């Protein structure tokens, strides 16, 4: 609940968080790069995905469809479907950041799970710094995700399985820390719990990525009559 967590509200604290998130995400970039080239994409194609698509779930979906012999149309459709959640993030980020039209162009590209979670974790605080949190996290993840992808694509994935260092557990720990301060009411706690249950319940029946997207339906059940 709000008030029990203690995200560091200083400028330096935000930047340290952004760098930490970039590092854990970058480790997954290595996995992505390696998977992409073993799926038959070239290093350039892999790097184009990480720089231009820049949304992990969609990238994994695209290369998995191609690796499985799927058509380009199926690959594009799969990546777009998983990219849909960034639309929901964009609606909220636009409200919070209120970027100029020119800044909206790069802001949209950097609108992903991590930057959204950081902006919201640093919003509505004694010293709110949502814009700093958003931009620093977006840029840190962009640079390190691309660097990781390049390392993985060049075949250096032997530097280690993310699991070996517990990095796969660092990711949920980081998301928990970012979600924690956002749960500021019973209603939002309800939204979070139901969404988590739905995500897990649908995991065995839907392709990876879709269970998370289905959680976008949950808020419709938590609407209140206009007060």
């Amino acid at each position, binding site marked *: 609940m709000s008030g*029990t*967590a203690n995200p560091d509200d200083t400028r330096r*604290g935000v930047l*340290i*968080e952004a760098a930490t998130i970039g590092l*854990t995400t970058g480790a997954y970039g290595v996995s992505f790069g390696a998977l992409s080239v073993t799926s038959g994409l070239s290093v350039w194609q892999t790097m*184009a995905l990480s720089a231009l*698509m820049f*949304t992990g779930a*969609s990238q994994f979906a695209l290369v998995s469809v191609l690796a499985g012999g799927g058509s380009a149309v199926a690959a*594009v459709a799969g*990546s777009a479907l998983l*990219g849909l959640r960034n*639309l*929901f*993030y*964009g*609606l*909220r980020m*636009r*409200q919070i950041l209120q970027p100029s039209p020119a800044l*909206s*162009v790069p*802001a*949209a590209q950097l609108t992903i*799970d991590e930057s*959204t979670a950081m902006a*919201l974790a640093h919003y509505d605080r004694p010293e709110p710094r949502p814009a700093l949190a958003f931009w620093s996290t977006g840029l840190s993840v962009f640079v390190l995700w691309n660097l990781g992808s390049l390392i993985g694509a060049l075949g250096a994935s032997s530097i280690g399985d993310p*699991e070996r260092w*517990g*990095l*796969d*557990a*660092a*990711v*949920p*720990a*980081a*998301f*928990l*820390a*970012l*979600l924690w301060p956002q*749960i500021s009411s019973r*209603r939002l706690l309800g*939204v979070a*719990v139901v*969404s*988590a*249950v*739905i*995500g*897990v319940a649908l*995991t*065995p029946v839907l392709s990876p990525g879709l269970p998370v997207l289905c*959680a976008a339906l949950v*808020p419709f059940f938590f*609407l*209140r009559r*206009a007060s």
Partner: protein
Amino acid sequence: MIWAAVLLGSAACYALKALGYVVPERVLDKPVVAQLVGMFPVALLAALLAVVTLADGMAVVVDARVAAVAAAAVALMLRAPFLVVVVVGAATAAVIRALGG
């Protein structure tokens, strides 16, 4: 063909991201829409948290990640800073795996 998928997929994903920034403000100002927009990220991030904790492909598995998230929750209750929470999570999973758990 791969290039076509890469470029079209990237264009589609960017268009979806950008769409959130071009929806007219008067639409977002509607009370129902405003409520939904406020709840969407919490719903998606909570589902993502649950899935990265419990999913392995399409299987649901309880492994070292669950203990890591529990340890991270304890760290958060003790008001630990972000970096400590993340390190506690990673270290918990690494120790459990090193012990063969």
